[in-house]
């Protein structure tokens, strides 16, 4: 592992930490809204988060396929 890779890893980790922080803030907001309305998180709200997750998974898959095509 060279210095450039270490910087890349550190950068990825910091980005993940920042993104997770933002996501937690959104989750807290969703929870507070639901509580004010006297309910738990709705299936629709969970589905919206799952759709966002699936979009990221599709993006990762597309990048892997691009890499495979580039390698072949």
């Amino acid at each position, binding site marked *: *592992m060279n*210095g450039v*890779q*270490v910087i*890349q*890893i*550190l*950068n*990825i*980790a*910091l*980005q*993940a*930490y920042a*993104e*997770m*922080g933002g*996501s*937690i*803030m*959104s*989750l*807290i907001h*969703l*929870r507070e809204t639901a509580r004010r309305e006297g309910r*738990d*998180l*709705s*299936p629709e*709200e*969970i589905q919206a*988060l*799952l759709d*966002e*997750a*699936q979009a*990221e*998974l599709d*993006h*990762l*898959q597309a*990048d*892997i396929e691009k*890499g*495979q095509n580039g*390698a072949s």
Partner: protein
Amino acid sequence: MRKLISYSSLSFAIILIALNAFLQACSPVTNEPFVPRSNPETLAYIAVSIKTMARSMDAAYTQHVISQQDAVKGLAYLQSAKNAVSQVPPEPVPPAPDAPKADWDAYKVAHDSYVAQQNSAISAAQTALALAAAILDAQEKQP
């Protein structure tokens, strides 16, 4: 070199803390601890964890920090976590308050089954997320 490797260990420790500390995650702005207090909140937390980890996996792959083989494995684990959460059936609707006792008994059985499936999905998703995190974590052990 050891110092560099310890920096990478630290960075992945941060990823693991951010993605796996389901009970201890904190908002950096409000400083309010996010402790899932119900199964729906845990499912929502898993969903954002999958999203964040998929982004990290993508960044690690495109920057050649992890191999294509590891990226494929990581994608499979994350997809499996997402599928586990997606397969939780809709919550059964309770009968009317004046419905016969048999209807309420049937509802109780259906609701117990629903909660069991939710718990099983949470457990499966958390296992898959841990496996995906281990792929990123393994980088620190590379020479």
